[in-house]
């Protein structure tokens, strides 16, 4: 076992011992899973009850306070990891979170965050009319102090720019230590019915390291490409990153029920602490808008719209009936993203800080799903996606929490370029695909899809979201 994993295990054991009371509760829940307790009087024991006990055991373990195990994606291509989590909160407005994850392919991420939460400068009210008060958006400001260390054992690289090929496949190992502060403050003055506008800021010191990979079928980036083809692959700089931005999103109390949107624009300066040859600026913007398509119930003069509790499953698969009497046909989501990077004449953007297209990007966001992960990489990126999600059935296995099975289809179009001026819609790569998703409590926790049409075959993929 590697040193970080040993350290995590030690933290887990010590902190668990310190809070034996919580552990005792969890142990009881898990005990019931393996050896079911007597059913409640008047109820019938059922195998599903035991299944449910296992679920509760898992949830208890994953939410154990102040320390417990955690699971999640470590990073694209780095697998699904397990580890430990510690949380401590002196009051409702401050929380310390320590987390460590380790995956089977020898990648890990450890992180610490101390968060301060503040109420907005003044309440943001939306949706009022005729002098009547509306709803108060309850989003709070936050200021986070972060410390992160990760080591991703094998990352893929195919060359820079739009003309790279699969034949150029190389690999690298990426490590990074960073610490800094970031914050968000909603702006009451400019927020309102159209959305909640907020300012974002961040200041971070990051020390990235890339290395070659031994024993892999593909050559290492520093050998195959060197600094000429992959800037920063032989020597890495330390950076101070300073950024500021604006965000807008649909209020938490929506004035429009069936439409939601969010968008963010950030400007960041990466300051190379050494030779400055890797200093650069980046402007990135993204946004999405979702339209849910509803079929309204027939006009009724009764006390309530008719709700059919005996509706056939196939009818719900076509149009999912809701408690209001309306039914949901599906939802369109349109997403756009632009990243542009700017350098001085003698500067370059290091390859490991360049955005990618293909599969999912470094942060786990879907990009061009008809290509493999990280297939295209360049300092500048353009991406447009259209998804149509259709709920087909509620999760019907008894004992599972609220959720839905869904089908979705998608269209992606994207491009990368070596300079901002050449980032256009000309020559965009496109793909289409279909997928299947499982949503629990309004979050997609698993999606399986196949994308094709991008000229490089079809690409099945499965992604898990961190459920807890």
């Amino acid at each position, binding site marked *: 076992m590697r040193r970080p994993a040993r350290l995590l295990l030690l933290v887990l054991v010590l902190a668990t011992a310190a809070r034996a009371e919580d552990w005792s509760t969890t142990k*009881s829940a898990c005990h*019931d899973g393996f050896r079911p*307790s007597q*059913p*409640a*009087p*008047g*109820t019938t024991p059922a195998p599903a*009850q035991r299944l*449910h*006990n296992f679920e509760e055991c898992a949830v208890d373990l994953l939410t154990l306070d102040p320390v417990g195990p955690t699971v999640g994606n470590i990073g694209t291509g780095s697998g699904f990891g397990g580890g430990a989590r510690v949380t401590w909160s*002196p*009051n*409702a*407005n401050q929380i310390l979170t320590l987390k460590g994850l380790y995956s089977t392919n020898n990648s890990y991420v450890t992180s610490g965050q101390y*968060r301060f*939460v503040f*109420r907005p400068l003044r*309440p943001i009210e939306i*949706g009022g*009319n005729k002098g*009547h*008060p*509306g*709803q*108060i958006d*309850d*989003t*709070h*400001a*936050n200021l986070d102090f972060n410390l992160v260390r990760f080591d991703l054992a094998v990352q893929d690289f195919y060359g820079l720019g739009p003309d790279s090929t699969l034949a150029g496949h190389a690999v690298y190992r990426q490590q990074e230590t960073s610490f800094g502060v970031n914050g968000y403050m*909603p702006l009451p003055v400019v927020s309102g019915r159209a959305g909640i506008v*907020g300012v974002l800021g961040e200041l971070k010191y990051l020390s990235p390291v890339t290395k070659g990979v031994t024993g892999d079928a593909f050559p290492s980036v520093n050998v195959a490409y060197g600094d000429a083809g992959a800037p920063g692959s032989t020597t890495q700089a330390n950076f101070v990153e300073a950024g500021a931005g604006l*965000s*807008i*999103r649909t209020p938490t*109390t*929506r004035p429009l*029920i069936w439409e939601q949107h969010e*968008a963010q624009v950030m400007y960041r300066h990466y300051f190379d602490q050494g030779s400055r040859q890797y200093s650069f600026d980046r402007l990135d913007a993204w946004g999405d808008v979702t339209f849910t398509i509803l079929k309204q*119930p027939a006009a009724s*003069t009764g*006390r*309530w*719209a008719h*709700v059919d*509790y005996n509706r056939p499953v196939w009818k719900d698969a076509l149009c999912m*009936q809701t*408690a*209001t*009497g309306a039914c949901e046909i599906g939802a369109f989501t349109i997403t756009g993203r632009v990243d542009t990077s700017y350098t001085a004449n003698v500067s370059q953007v290091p390859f490991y800080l360049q955005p990618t297209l293909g599969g999912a990007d470094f942060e786990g966001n879907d990009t061009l799903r008809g290509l493999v992960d990280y297939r295209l990489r360049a300092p500048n990126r353009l991406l447009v996606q259209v998804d149509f999600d259709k709920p087909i059935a*509620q*999760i*019907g296995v*008894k*004992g*599972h929490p*609220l959720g*839905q099975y869904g089908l979705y289809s998608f269209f992606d179009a994207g491009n990368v370029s070596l300079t901002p001026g050449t980032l256009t819609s000309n020559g965009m790569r496109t793909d289409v695909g279909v997928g299947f998703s499982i949503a629990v*409590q309004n979050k997609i926790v698993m999606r399986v899809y196949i994308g094709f049409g991008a000229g490089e075959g079809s690409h099945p993929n499965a992604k898990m979201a961190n459920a807890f």
Partner: protein
Amino acid sequence: MPAQINHFFVLMMENRSFDHMLGFMKATGYDIEGLDPAALPYNEDSAENKIYASSDAQYTGDLAADPNHHFPDVTQQLYGTLQPAPGQQLDMSGFVLNYEVKSGSAASGAHIMKCFKPEALPILTTLASQYAVCDHWFSSIPGPTLPNRLYAHCGTSRGRLDMAPEYYQGFYTVYEELAKNQVPSCIFWSDWSTTLTFSGLLAHQNLFYIDYENFSAICKGPANQVPAYCFIEPRYSPADALTGGVLPQSDQHPDADVRDGETLIRNVYNAIRQNDELWHSSILVIVYDEHGGIYDHLPPVPLPSPDGLSSVDPPFDFKLSGVRVPAVVISPYIKPGTICKTIFDHTSLIATALKLFAKWPNDALYDRAQSANTIDTLLDLTMTPRDDWPAFDEPAVAARIQPAAITPAPLSDLQREAIQHAISLNASLPAANRVPVPGDLTQPAQAGAFTQAVARAALAAHQGLKS
């Protein structure tokens, strides 16, 4: 022609006692069963220091260690000891002792007696004083969240007192009973619902659950597309917003910031109030699931067992309520300053829903619900619906509308009913426990004193029977 109620909304918050939230609203001319600053109740700590109820509660930070509220702990809170003697009176004397152990010091143990100044909670106290406050609403059992919320959904916990997660099979809910009568109902949820283990609801998730984010917009739409019975869940845990910021915990469970729950209450009220058609056919109840281990001075009351099932370990027959919780009833058919002293528990919610929208009387949700007092009795459906809109500013900013400004009124219909109820209950007690019926019962304060005395006598009689 009397108005018709088509919509019944319930917002159930978490873990605060009546005295803690509303007790200091008691004032001249506003005679709720609250805290009298001239005669404050107290508990003793382990060093026998008297710790008085005080009006200096902070929005967050007082109760960093979650106060105990499982059955054995509540037993200590009610009797002052973990093992009360047979027939021992409920004196509400063990809150400080219990929290002293939990919090680790006598100083922090005293925090359990802290209550809010009315002006610290402008939303809740304004709604309470502008509509109806129920000062005899008790949680259903002297225990924690899950069994208490079970009573709100199912009318029973089937002999369970614990928080174990097998609340899963065999429970029949008010939502299913309403559906059987072709009445739509739903649970508006933010991040979690304790009903997510009910197989009957999970079989029709799309028909029984709606994301709370849609609540205001649905209320703004056609009134007949709003389900008849709507149970609203607060946000139980904070969450990150994708574009920045934190969505706060709004359930007011200690030690969450109480102001965030105030905002939720304001939003729920305004969402309903914004649509006159909906408002004119609605009742909104704001109630808390249980006291959360926080002090209240009024002892629990006897209530019927819902189904005759008892808990063996710990032994309990489900014939005693839990600790009193805050409850505010809002409707355009309620006069400002209404004080309701009728005894309610959470089964009153489902009884009211069934009475308003389905078959009544109705034994589908067990005996306690069938015999529970219903909330519709607070309404005067013949009055012109109130279209005033109480002005309240944000939590911790606005001053509450002073209850002293409310004109003292003669006995309301509700108070008359309460007196009749008390007289009836009094007559059913053993002779030794009966309270003399006063010759003059024309003032609200007299009515309150009498009904309270009967309640105490009934409780004492109940304890005697238990022993």
